[in-house]
């Protein structure tokens, strides 16, 4: 009797499983049911930033830029789409400077919270990982935190980057060094110690320097070419190679935590070079605080924005005033890029008149807007894989704590000092 019952029960269960499988809805049907109306009551923008972890300082800077842009947009009721003014809301999560977390949270924002569009996180490594989710889900992803060309040469159609390429950053720095070399302030030929983080960001920097050196006709020679792990704790091995090489120029590409650690060990190793740079890092106020102003003097950095661009008035001045009013301090390039990335997205939403993915993607691809960034224009050209392309500004730390723009000359607000006075005596 018991065996018969079990047999019948098993057959019934099997039939039930087949029945529910047969009448199952498809994924497409489920998605269609969730489609949005054309003009929503609110535009929901999803984003993650590294608010904790190694990149927390910079993540918080980007957050300030994002929030300021949202506040400014909502002051007049929001964005104009479909003849209506619709408020915008930022759904911001902390990706803890972890790539897997950044990916998972993007999945959550897109597929569970149903955000209309994504703003990117900060740092190349995180953007490179996270952008795959946006591409998979075919939702526009606008970021101001990923500069490496590796993000944009994958053939993705939904990823837009507001940071100009790192290779151009390296080239701009080399142009300034060459100018100083021609003025007799840097040895000719000059030997370069080149250190780069082993990310696509670092590889782009390395390529920029190497290509420039190769085309310089012997004026520059790379004598140390070493990579290091992102978020390293010990650089003594690479720095000892730099020391024994006797190079004239110290060119490193590092993110903020690695810059602080490496510069501390650089100073304690009694190293000094005619030119010293950490790529885009060097002018951060908290780094000067951590290392001591005397240990960051004369460091050169090429950045995507400098607060002194505000002296030209216009949108830059408006942004700086709005930022100062809210945060009582001067913005750095991180906040400016966060702000400008959001503004680019908002401009595209208004151009598209919709938050539907395809029209918005088209609007971003065709965007031409006046910008606070050097060059005054922001667009996402198709030929660069939708990565913005505009000039960098080179700045140099001075003992008074300021970092004036020293290159290009038409934007310069101060005079460059080379060779590094720290090496005298």
């Amino acid at each position, binding site marked *: 009797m018991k065996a018969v019952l079990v047999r019948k029960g098993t057959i019934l269960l099997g039939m039930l499983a087949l029945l529910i499988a047969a009448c199952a809805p498809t994924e497409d049907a489920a998605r269609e049911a969730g489609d949005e109306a054309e003009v929503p009551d609110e535009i929901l923008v999803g984003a993650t930033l590294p608010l904790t972890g190694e990149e927390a300082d910079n993540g918080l800077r980007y957050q300030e830029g994002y929030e300021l842009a949202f506040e400014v947009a909502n002051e007049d009721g929001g964005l104009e789409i479909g003849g209506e003014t619709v408020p915008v809301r930022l759904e911001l999560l902390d990706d803890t400077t972890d790539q897997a977390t950044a990916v998972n949270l993007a999945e*959550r924002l897109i597929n569970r919270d149903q955000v209309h569009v994504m703003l990117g996180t900060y740092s190349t490594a995180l953007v490179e990982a996270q952008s795959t989710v946006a591409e998979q889900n075919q939702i526009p992803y606008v970021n101001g935190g990923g500069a490496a060309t590796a993000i944009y040469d994958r053939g993705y159609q939904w990823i837009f980057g507001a940071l100009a390429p790192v290779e151009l950053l390296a080239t701009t720095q080399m142009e300034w060094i060459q100018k100083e070399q021609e003025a007799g302030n840097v040895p000719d030929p000059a030997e370069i110690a080149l250190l780069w983080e082993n990310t696509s960001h670092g590889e782009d920097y390395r390529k920029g320097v190497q290509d420039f050196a190769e085309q310089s006709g012997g004026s520059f020679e790379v004598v140390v070419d070493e990579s290091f792990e992102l978020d390293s704790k010990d650089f003594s091995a690479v720095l000892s190679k730099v020391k024994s090489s006797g190079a004239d120029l110290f060119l490193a590409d590092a993110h903020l935590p690695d810059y602080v650690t490496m510069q501390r060990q650089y100073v304690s190793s009694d190293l000094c070079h005619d030119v010293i740079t950490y790529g885009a890092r060097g002018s951060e106020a908290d780094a000067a605080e951590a290392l001591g102003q005397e240990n960051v003097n004369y460091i050169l950095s090429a950045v995507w924005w400098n607060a002194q661009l505000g002296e030209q008035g216009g949108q830059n001045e408006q942004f700086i005033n709005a930022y100062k009013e809210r945060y009582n301090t001067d913005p750095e390039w991180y906040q400016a890029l966060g702000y400008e990335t959001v503004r680019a997205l908002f401009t595209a939403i208004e151009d598209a008149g919709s938050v539907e993915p395809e029209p918005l993607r088209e609007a971003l691809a065709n965007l031409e807007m006046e910008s606070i960034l050097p060059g005054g224009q922001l667009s996402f050209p198709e030929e660069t894989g939708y990565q913005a392309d505009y000039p960098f500004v080179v700045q140099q730390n001075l003992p008074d704590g300021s970092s004036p723009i020293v290159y290009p000359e038409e934007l310069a607000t101060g005079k460059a000092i080379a060779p590094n006075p720290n090496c005298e005596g």
Partner: protein
Amino acid sequence: MRQLTRWLPEWASPWAVVAFVFGFAVLYSLPLVISFDSYTHGIITQAFVFAAAAMAWNWLGGYVGQISFGHAAMFGVGGFLSARLLLTTSFPFWIAWIVGGLAAASYALLWGHPTLRLRGPYFAIATIGVSEATRLIATYWGDFTGGSSGISLPISEGTAKFSLYWYALYFMAFVVLLSYYLRKSRIGLGLLAIKEDVDAAQDVGVSANYYQDAVLFLSGLVVGVAGGIYASYFVFIEPGDMFGFERSISFLLMGVIGGVGTILGPVLGAFVFVILQEYLIASYPDLYLGLYGTLLIVVILFEPLGLSGLLLRIARLFGYRPRVLDITVGDTKLTAMEEPEAVEPPESDVEPARKEAKA
């Protein structure tokens, strides 16, 4: 049921087969019946993959008693090799996963064969060293792993990611069967004998070297395939995540939370781990690691068999009593609870035999 029993090998329970088929049917049809969003769909897919990896960790950590902190090494090897194969060849993805798994298993054997002669904390420390060395090599081997940035896989068209749910389910189901076989068959008894006392096990004819190597190979294979599926799911992997110490710890945590040494405990542990992580990390990113630590302490202090032990207590309240088996391995008589408690060798039988053999 009697007919089913006749078809099955002696170590397999007909009730377990029915439960397995039912569970598989439910999980197979779940996304077709409940149209949950693709985020939830993805979380369950991840849970299947990690459940398989946690079971594989449990074969070594739970069945043999060799706690490994180095399984991330195999996860990473499998993941990166699969990814590279998918990027550079036209292999079907499942072949790339298997090749990645085999490479991970071979790598496991390479470092495991010498280190498995160590026991207890010495083995655990050795696995930490292996894992960290592998991570560093992978991080600096930029041409293969993409360095600290990692590598992106081609984004597949259509519903390929959606269908990974079922591939992950097949994989987990296969590993459940393997886990059951390893635990219930004669091999499982050999493993438990090694866990209790490696010298005594050798004395009664259980080859500790062979058994441990075989288990590590299988464990590496499964964890390597899990790494491959993980890479296909995320379409982006990087060495810090794949080879990191946190990855190794996560396998251990899943085992401990679910119940070390049990068959299905790691599955429960993996589901709890993945779901907790997903929901906590968005709201309390600073707290979730602390919460795992607290959970670990609570489990170790109050319920060493984790969630499995908790479920057993509840089942006992309803009158369930695990079947006690008398098993003979060589000349030694062992007493075993059917599930989930591990074999308890009677002191009076094993101890004198071991002492005699040592003498």
